[in-house]
């Protein structure tokens, strides 16, 4: 028997980055708000504190900060011809769990998209013509431009506390920054980080080849910092435990360090943990949502939480799943007919890299942070001649030590045995004497890559799991091979004792086992019209005007960058629309 809670103005589903942003911005309006979080509560102290957090096995390998598949997962197949099978143990991607979500355990790689990436179809059409768009690629424009989002990128960067050096201030190219980035209205909130030995070597080699290296922007504090909500960060000590870990010293941007402490001061805001939302409920006329039904783990019962506004701010995969279960976000996409919108445009990331071995040099790989390094954008989306190269896309490159813990980070020259005396000799000889350069590349949306409900497998509540249909596509694989052809000569110019490349090639099949990236995008993509996507330019559901959907599910196709900067910018753009346009007159804003 379901219990019903008193009605709220706003219910927020998922208390990570975007749920925290929505919470604090709408709390400032005096609205009565409740956030529902599937996982547990967690704070820097006691949950991330030293030394318990410095535990590679528990967090890096056993993944104790992550979503448990026993509680929530999905099924995966590579094509419509395969039977989807459950993602039973985590591998390829690692959704977070608990308050703060994936914002607690990310690397802090905060990038803005390029202006061209938000109008990519038009950019391609203007420069090469639509004929170069491969069959089956859903190339689109975002319904909101870089110029419109710029103030909101700036806002998110101030809140999150981002370190870096601007390369383009109001159109003026700046020494030391990325000359190919979109314009910025202001300098970064904090100066760039110091360079470790590997990044220094990479930067020098890149400059010698005529490229344009710069210090990567980082959601990692380089100085002491107080953000617009009065939250304080302390400078990073390069402890090396970022990705898969909570930050023990208030240096990594996260909902905990940037927002939650301030948000919890508002008496009109409350949050309930161990509260898993099962369904968004719809009014009889079908035009609005009435609230959400959730599972209260402590009381072991279903609860109906009525609300005037519903904000879906769980992880991309879980947002799409909830929309599929609730009938929100338009008709479900059908890859055969091309009809429908929900579940369409699922995309990922195309990455590769080179490892370089220098027996006589010391890299101290444990000294670093998740966004450490020197980067370059000379092969970025707005630098590549798509027509001549035969693909649409690009990547940024970066070199910098991070995660140098030995269970997971033990690069050895090819030919080294994987066990036995030869392996033991190899780890003694090579640990600390290797560096890497990574290529972090775009991933387009395709007709065949999509999300819907699985016909066979169910979760602990009896709900169908979501089903992912996904495989690598030739366009992105060709992009990856191009990066290989450009990166290997740069790496060779550094004269390592040996080097080896890892770039997927045409024909590669998606393998769910090795970690690749937790940059799952699309599925409830934003669009100019209700025929093309699930939400409008304000992330407002086309079919239920009081439902706003946050996160990377809004992406039309993925960019070449880590998604958090765009996710944060879109979240501030959305809450600004709610505050300035929607509250006074609730209605479809487009």
């Amino acid at each position: 028997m379901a219990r019903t809670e008193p009605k709220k103005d706003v219910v927020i589903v998922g208390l990570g980055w975007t749920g925290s942003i929505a919470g604090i911005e709408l709390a400032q309006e005096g609205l009565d708000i409740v956030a529902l979080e599937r996982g547990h509560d967690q704070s820097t102290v006691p949950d991330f504190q030293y030394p318990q957090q410095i535990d590679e096995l528990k967090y890096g390998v056993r993944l104790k900060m992550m979503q448990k598949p026993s509680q929530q997962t999905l099924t995966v197949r590579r094509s419509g011809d395969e039977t989807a099978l459950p993602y039973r143990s985590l591998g390829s991607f690692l959704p977070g769990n608990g308050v703060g979500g994936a914002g607690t355990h990310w690397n802090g790689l905060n990038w803005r998209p390029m202006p061209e990436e938000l109008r990519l179809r038009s950019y391609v059409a203007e420069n090469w013509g639509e004929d170069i768009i491969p069959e089956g690629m859903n190339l689109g424009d975002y319904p909101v431009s870089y110029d419109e989002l710029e103030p909101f990128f700036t806002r998110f960067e101030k809140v999150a506390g981002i370190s870096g050096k601007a390369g383009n201030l109001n159109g003026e190219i700046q020494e030391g920054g990325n000359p190919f980035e979109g314009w910025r209205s202001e300098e970064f909130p904090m100066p760039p980080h110091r360079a470790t030995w590997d990044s220094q070597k990479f930067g020098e080699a890149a400059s010698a080849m005529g490229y344009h290296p710069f210090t990567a922007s980082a959601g990692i504090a380089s100085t002491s910092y107080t953000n617009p909500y009065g939250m304080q960060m302390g400078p990073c000590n390069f402890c090396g435990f970022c990705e898969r870990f909570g930050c023990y010293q208030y240096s990594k941007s996260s909902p905990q360090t940037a927002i939650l402490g301030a948000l919890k001061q508002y008496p009109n805001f409350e949050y309930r943990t161990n509260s898993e939302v099962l369904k968004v409920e719809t009014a009889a006329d079908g035009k609005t949502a009435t609230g959400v039904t959730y599972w209260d783990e402590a009381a072991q019962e279903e609860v109906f939480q009525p609300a005037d506004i519903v904000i879906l701010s769980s992880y991309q995969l879980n947002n799409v799943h909830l929309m599929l279960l609730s009938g929100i976000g338009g008709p479900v996409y059908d890859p055969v007919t091309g009809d429908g919108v929900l579940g369409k445009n699922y995309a990922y990331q195309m990455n590769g890299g080179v490892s370089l071995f220098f027996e006589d040099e010391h890299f101290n790989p444990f000294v670093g942070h998740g966004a450490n390094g020197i980067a370059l954008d000379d092969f970025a989306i707005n630098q590549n001649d798509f027509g001549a190269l035969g693909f649409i896309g690009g990547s940024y490159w970066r070199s910098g030590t991070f995660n140098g813990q030995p269970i997971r980070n033990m690069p050895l020259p090819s030919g080294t045995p994987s066990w036995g005396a030869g392996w033991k000799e190899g780890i003694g000889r090579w640990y600390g004497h290797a560096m890497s350069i990574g290529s972090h590349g775009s991933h387009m949306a395709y007709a065949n890559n999509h999300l819907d409900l699985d016909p066979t497998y169910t979760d602990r509540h009896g709900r169908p799991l979501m089903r992912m249909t996904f495989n690598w596509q030739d366009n992105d694989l060709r992009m990856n091979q191009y990066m290989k052809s450009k990166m290997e000569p740069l790496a060779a110019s550094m004269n390592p004792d040996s080097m080896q490349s890892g770039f997927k090639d045409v024909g590669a099949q998606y393998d769910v086992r090795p970690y690749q990236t937790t940059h799952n995008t699309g599925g409830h993509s934003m669009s100019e019209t209700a025929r093309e996507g699930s939400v409008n330019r304000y992330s407002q559901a086309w079919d239920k005007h009081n439902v706003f959907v946050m996160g990377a599910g809004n992406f039309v196709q993925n960019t070449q960058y880590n998604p958090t900067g765009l996710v944060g910018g879109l979240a501030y753009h959305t809450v600004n629309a709610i505050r300035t346009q929607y509250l006074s007159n609730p209605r479809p804003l487009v």
Partner: protein
Amino acid sequence: MTDLPGYPSRRNFLKGSAAGFALTGIAASAEAQVEAPVSLDEYETEYLNGAEWAFIMAATARLIPSEGDGPGALETRVPVFIDRQLAGDYGSADDWYMEGPHAPDAEPARGWQTPLTPAEVYRQAIPAFDAWCQSSHGASFAELDAETQDAALTSLSEGEVELSSELRDFWSLLLSNTKEGYFADPQYGGNAGMQSWVYIGFPGARAAYREWPERHNIEYPLGPVSISGERA
């Protein structure tokens, strides 16, 4: 090697003081004040039975042998780590989605699809592999000489040992769990005395390197600490 002014380098320190010994001596005496761990022969297992323990002892001793530079799996007590992991929530796959139907014959790229937990895979695969060793080499794995054990493990790693598809991830589990036990914090039973960290030069749970980003191409001089605060 470049030494940092004002710091003893790790290697020079080792060279200058009879030292591999001195360091382990310090760790051992710190441990002794708490409680010296029982020898592997006297260890009472939490999950593995006698035959399984004999197999794990023998197999890990070949996966990370004692010969040559650096500690082996037995000196670092990797078998204790594996036993405890299998007895805990990892062994029973508590965090994993284990509902059927299962498709253990699916391509490996589809991920873990056996109905068995990691602990169950060990339980069923060890006798199956021992039976293969018996028929191929005339004795169970633990009773073979080291050279034959290496040959048998090579066969296992290359998929030449007929195991049912439910057990096909046995080799990768065994190898990855062995390396985990070698490198994980000592609180989990392996990496005794932080010997693997000393060997490769990983400082463990120090996690504070504020002056180090721009100390380019200089070897970090300090030995490791564990989560419980021991030094080596």
